[in-house]
């Protein structure tokens, strides 16, 4: 990921070559959105919960340094070893060093989008350390040598028949056996052996409590627990924005996280880690990787409130019809499109434009991030920073000239003449992009302006 030269529009165009698959992808994710709606509607105070969660996160962002220092102090008292990483590379080096110090070259890892963001797997594999992803969906994409296409449902782009083929090749299941229960049982047997034999487990962090120095990992499969409880070394990687002030705030976040994500009342496992078992090492790596830069951008800082529920992806009509990989970044969808330009504005200049600005994302967001407004604002920044095609800039200037001069507009617009060639929204793209699958509007015999003038002249 991140090395592709194709942008979101081109990758979506490829995805849309198979319309049946697009329909299936759309329906699958819409089903998740519908489950979310149902779960939310069971809670009469749902909108208050969102507001509450939003305000807690606002408070966190405004006092982040104090909360982090408090968390570090408490965690250290609890016997956890705390590391600080300025960027992805430092994070990866820290993890590698911990493993080297303990003579470990094989680890299990439960789901952590941060490690995807840091490309930890590639880094460790390059250093001859084997990583087994233990989240079922992540294991599937790992076997397929792909990146997750969704932050909660990593292999949502794969049909069960494709998974059956992967398992047949890698786990030796019978060819053509695609019964989900059978495949899950096969994965369980395969993963149990890894849990038992691996000496180190890496997990993500959903919430870290400043007050107590504990952290909470939410999974539906219990794989984080299996890894962490069996391993001699537990490494937890967390973005610095995952802090919450107090344990009691979990009462808000654990209620909204999974309702927003999958429509479940709560994750199957919400595991609290506070101190290592006797003889166990517990490490936390606190990672910045651009977060403080984002925090310094007034228009975009609230994107750091994200709790990674993916509700914005499931509701996004563009995501559902373009697939997670079309965003060519670890975190896809609307939230990814406002996070990624902070990391690399040139590489991800296309993402804020991969939206109709419909606003559904902001409405489902459990921490009330104004995602669609930030998409609009990123567009302005990207254009000003010059990451836009020069033809488009020239066309925009021509349009400005026409539209700000009523006389020019009238002559140019004489019943659609200028408009047919230069529909304001077709700027820089051949008008054929409209016409390829849509008819043009019929040109009326007169514009409203012309009709109006005639009416008045007749009077």
């Amino acid at each position, binding site marked *: 990921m991140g090395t592709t030269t194709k942008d979101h*529009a081109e990758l*979506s*165009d490829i995805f*849309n070559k198979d*319309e049946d698959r*697009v329909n299936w992808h759309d329906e699958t994710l819409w089903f998740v959105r519908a489950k979310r709606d149902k779960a*939310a*509607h069971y809670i009469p105070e749902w*909108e208050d919960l969102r507001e509450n969660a939003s305000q807690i996160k606002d408070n966190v962002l405004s006092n982040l340094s104090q909360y982090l220092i408090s968390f570090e102090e408490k965690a250290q008292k609890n016997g956890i070893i705390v590391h600080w990483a300025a960027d992805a590379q430092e994070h990866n080096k820290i993890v590698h060093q911990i493993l080297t110090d303990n003579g470990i070259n094989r680890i299990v890892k439960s789901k952590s989008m941060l490690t995807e963001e840091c490309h930890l797997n590639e880094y460790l594999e390059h250093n001859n350390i084997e990583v087994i992803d233990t989240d079922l969906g992540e294991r599937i994409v790992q076997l397929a040598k792909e990146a997750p296409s969704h932050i909660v449902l990593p292999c949502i782009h794969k049909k069960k028949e494709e998974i059956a083929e992967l398992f047949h090749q890698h786990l030796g299941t019978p060819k053509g056996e695609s019964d989900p229960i059978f495949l899950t049982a096969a994965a369980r047997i395969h993963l149990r052996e890894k849990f038992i034999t691996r000496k180190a487990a890496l997990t993500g962090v959903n919430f870290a409590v400043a007050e107590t120095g504990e952290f909470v990992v939410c999974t539906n499969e219990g794989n984080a627990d299996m890894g962490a409880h069996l391993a001699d070394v537990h490494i937890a990687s967390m973005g610095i924005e995952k802090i919450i002030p107090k344990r009691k705030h979990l009462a808000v976040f654990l209620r909204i996280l999974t309702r927003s994500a999958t429509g479940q009342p709560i994750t199957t496992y919400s595991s609290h880690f506070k101190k290592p078992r006797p003889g166990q090492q517990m490490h936390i790596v606190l990672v910045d990787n651009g977060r403080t830069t984002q925090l310094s951008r007034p228009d975009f800082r609230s994107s750091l409130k994200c709790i990674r529920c993916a509700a914005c992806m499931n509701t996004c*009509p*563009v995501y559902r*019809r*373009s697939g997670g990989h079309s965003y060519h970044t670890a975190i896809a969808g609307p939230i990814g499109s406002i996070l990624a330009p902070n990391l690399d504005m040139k590489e991800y200049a296309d993402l*804020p*434009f*991969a*939206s*109709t*600005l*419909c*606003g*559904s994302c*902001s*409405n489902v967001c459990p921490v009330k991030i104004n995602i669609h407004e930030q998409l609009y604002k990123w567009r*302005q920044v*990207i254009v*000003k920073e010059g990451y836009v095609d020069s033809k488009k800039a020239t066309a*925009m*200037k021509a349009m*400005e000239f026409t*539209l*700000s001069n*009523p006389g020019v*507009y009238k002559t140019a*617009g004489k*019943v*659609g003449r200028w*408009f047919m060639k230069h*529909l*304001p*929204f*077709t*700027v820089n*793209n051949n*008008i054929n*992009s*409209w016409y*390829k*699958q*849509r*008819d*043009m*509007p019929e*040109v*009326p015999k007169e*514009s*409203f*302006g012309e*009709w*109006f003038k005639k009416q008045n002249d007749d009077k």
Partner: protein
Amino acid sequence: MTVGLFVPCYIDQFYPNAAIATLNLLQKLGVSVVYPTKQTCCGQPMANSGFEHLTKSCNELFIDNFDEFDYIVSPSGSCTLHIKDHLHSDKREPQATGIRKKVYELTEFLTDILKVEKLNASFPHKVGVHQSCHGQRGLMLAQMSELVAAPFSKPLQLLTMVEGLEIVPLNRPDECCGFGGTFCVAEEAVSVKMGKDRVEDHLNNGAEFITAADMSCLMHMEGILRRKESNVKVIHIAEILNASQ
């Protein structure tokens, strides 16, 4: 009360009937309407493409044209929202602020300002209502399916006053049609797919007409309907509300 009629550029050029219906409807309801003839475009196509800094002259022109009125009414949720959210002026910010507060989309003007309770209109057809996102989520013309909140809909409130009109239920009541301004050509594949899916929902539920408070969504869906040689037509909500008995 004098209302300035703000006619979006593509309505002026391609859908004059929507603007004529808006004008007639307002006049029928006893409103004094002025159409400033030097208007062009709100500047949204540029702003949504990231060129908001190029909309300054459009903004000034808009203030020249519309500052004097008690209200500004437009048959477009999207263009109204753009003015409401983004009209600013280096020289005349108080006027810009005034305009942002007094600009209304047609249906909200009818329900909230004129408080229309009765319409002399008849449209004996099955109609699917497309909730345009900028109108619905931006201007809050109707409750949004994502929120846990009491339902309401200003367009529906008006359409139920039209004799003979039958509203067609939709499977996804407020999914985006995929027009999205420059998105419709820059992201052609997804835009068209979204449009096809939206149109299909209306067709599967038996709509004869698809209506909306935004002609841009309808233009996109019309393009798809006509390409598939469907008999289903798009029609701006003003034309239905103005359809005589």
